[in-house]
């Protein structure tokens, strides 16, 4: 009887402690108006920035064509490229060398090389065309490469895209060639409405940066101020402190997620094709992994400054590596390996899968599984690093 009473009392105290910690964190988040407003406005602001950046997409790229076939099919293919609006044919030249020369001299920014017997190859389904892009102009590379891919897709042919740095013919041997068969961006984005792709990715990046930053600075700030020791001496258990820090930030992250999604749907007209509930559950999972990662960072960072710098580094990595802006396929293996360590890499795919493509879990179970394992690992590890003593 006494044992049961003790257990009940123990549980009651545990709930009291947990709710006290959650309430304290919540009050602190709500009192820090500046940070709160920024956290809630940032997503909207960034969406506008992206929308604006997207409208700067380069089209009417000056292009040179070397058509060795000069048959109906090759002319139709070039016609399709022009019709896409991305390519303006400025000159016809004899061969690939002259195309590269034209790019080198800065007269064009792209070149299309069509081999002989194009029509016959199309018949056999093994047509190859080469699109050469001026590597010194990142904007025309990405626009041109998406557009060329889209056209090639509809022609059901292989396409080789090559980047040429405008540095003269001598160094051309070292050029990076990008034999890319498809580009998801173009495949699922036939109307070139980039927001449909940007919004899901943006949710991932924003949530990632926010959760890491919030969790890391919340812990480091208390340690810096000297609050940690004063709370450590209470009976609050490490796991309660951990959960207490996570819960209010989790709620905040969900609110930000909803803001971005609703803004994307109602302002930018992004259709939400998949199941909203699976999206909510998976974002919770993703948010937990981010908060766990932030708590882990707090064990490394000594000062708030350091915590912010590490968060900033993550933001940069997220922007560059997770596939939000740059496709991941052409990345060198080591860069890909680094990107595999960022939870957002998986969630960018999941978010696009659910929102843009409307696919079910069965199409992305691998990403979900990785995210589950990731969350469990970071939360367990950070719980273990939340010690009950100072040393």
């Amino acid at each position, binding site marked *: 009887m006494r044992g049961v009473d003790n257990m009940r009392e123990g549980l009651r105290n545990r709930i009291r402690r947990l709710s*006290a910690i959650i309430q304290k964190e919540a009050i602190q988040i709500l*009192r820090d108006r500046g940070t709160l407003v920024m956290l809630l406005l940032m997503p909207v602001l960034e969406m506008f920035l992206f929308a604006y950046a997207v409208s700067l997409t380069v089209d009417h790229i000056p292009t040179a064509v070397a058509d060795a076939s000069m048959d109906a099919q090759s002319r139709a293919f070039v016609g399709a490229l022009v019709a896409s609006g991305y390519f303006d044919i400025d000159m016809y030249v004899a061969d690939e060398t002259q195309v590269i020369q034209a790019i080198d001299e800065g007269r064009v920014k792209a070149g299309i090389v069509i081999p002989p017997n194009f029509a016959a190859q199309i018949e056999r389904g093994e047509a190859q065309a080469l699109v050469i892009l001026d590597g010194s102009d990142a904007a025309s590379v990405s626009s041109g490469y998406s557009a060329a891919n889209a056209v090639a897709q509809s022609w059901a042919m292989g396409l080789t895209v090559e980047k040429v740095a405008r540095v003269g013919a001598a160094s051309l041997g070292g050029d990076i060639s990008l034999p890319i068969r498809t580009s998801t961006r173009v495949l699922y984005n036939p109307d070139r409405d980039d927001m449909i792709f940007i919004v899901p990715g943006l949710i991932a990046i924003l949530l990632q940066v926010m959760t890491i930053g919030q969790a890391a600075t919340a812990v480091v700030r208390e340690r810096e101020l000297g*609050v940690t*020791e*004063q709370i450590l*001496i*209470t009976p609050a258990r490490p796991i309660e402190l951990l959960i207490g820090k996570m819960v209010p930030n989790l709620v905040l992250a969900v609110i930000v997620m909803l803001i971005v999604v609703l803004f994307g749907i109602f302002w930018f007209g992004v259709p939400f094709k998949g199941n909203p509930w699976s999206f909510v559950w998976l974002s919770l999972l993703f948010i937990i992994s981010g908060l766990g990662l932030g708590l882990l960072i707090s064990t490394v960072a000594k000062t708030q400054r350091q915590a912010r710098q590490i968060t900033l580094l993550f933001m940069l990595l997220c922007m560059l590596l997770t596939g939000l802006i740059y496709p991941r396929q052409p990345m060198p293996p080591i860069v890909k390996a680094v990107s595999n360590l960022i939870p957002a890499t998986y969630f960018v795919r999941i978010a696009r899968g659910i929102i843009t493509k409307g696919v079910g879990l069965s199409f992305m179970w691998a990403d979900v599984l990785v995210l589950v394992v990731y969350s469990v690992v970071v939360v367990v590890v950070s719980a273990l690093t939340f010690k009950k*003593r*100072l040393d």
Partner: protein
Amino acid sequence: MDEQVVISTQNLVKQFQVKDGAVTAIDGVTLQVRRGETYGLIGPDGAGKTTTTRVILGLLTRTSGQSSILGHDSMRDTYRIRERVGYIAQQFALPGDLTVMENVRFFARVQGVSSAEQRRRIPDLLEFAGLSGFTDRLASRLSGGMKKKLALACSLVHEPQVVLLDEPTLGVDPVSRREFWNLLGDLRRERGTTIFVCTPYMDEAERCNWVGLMYEGRLIAHDSPGKIKQMVPGRLLEFKPSDFVPAWRLVPDLPGVLEVQTYGAMLHIFVDDPDRRGREIEAALAAQGITCEGMREIETRMEEAFISLIRKQSAGASDAA
């Protein structure tokens, strides 16, 4: 266990691992704090007071020796200790973006105080700490002295039998310091709370009924303040020489002079017979053309006793070496 002993350590040692070896912060400390006592752990910065307090509370692991509080081993019964003691850390901060009331309520709930008990206790506690008029003020907006009082209120909200206060008057003006010590006096009288205070201020030691003098990780003396002062042989003369350095060089060699300490522009001299030696010192200095201003006998204070004990300690250490 002896019901009367609230805190006890036996040959307590704490070493910190640093880049080039180990720092011994506590070097074999044995102390006992009895129920209802106000125990002052006194010593200069770096003596090891904070480390001792943290080890007793189980906030740091110990390297060797024993330590317990309220009969619970510091290392084993971590949470039972945390439910039963109050503590104000040296560089403490309470969440500054919470109000006074929110802070007290936070610590009450974390300590498992029921809502009914909170309603009963908190108003009294805030009244006691003189914070009743400031319940809605953010903790960060309180003055230094009020912050300390709030910390005290928070550390008392679960009515602990013992509180450990690590330099609670650090950075506080003299008036607030006095107020704070008056609160501690009330606490001891009204509730019988055992109080363990760390402080570098010798005058605060006089407010304790037992003091431990800590120096370089060791407890070099522990007794009542009166007894500690009696540990220094001789009686104390104070005066201001017109020429300080020569006087300071000359006096130690005079007959009957046991020890010389400097105190600002004054000299503090322990002698066997104050009347006789006072005249002799004046005469000896006058022969060198030095006049003595305000020669008088004063009570030995904790400060002089402490300096004297430290000197003997280091002299003993260098003899042994």
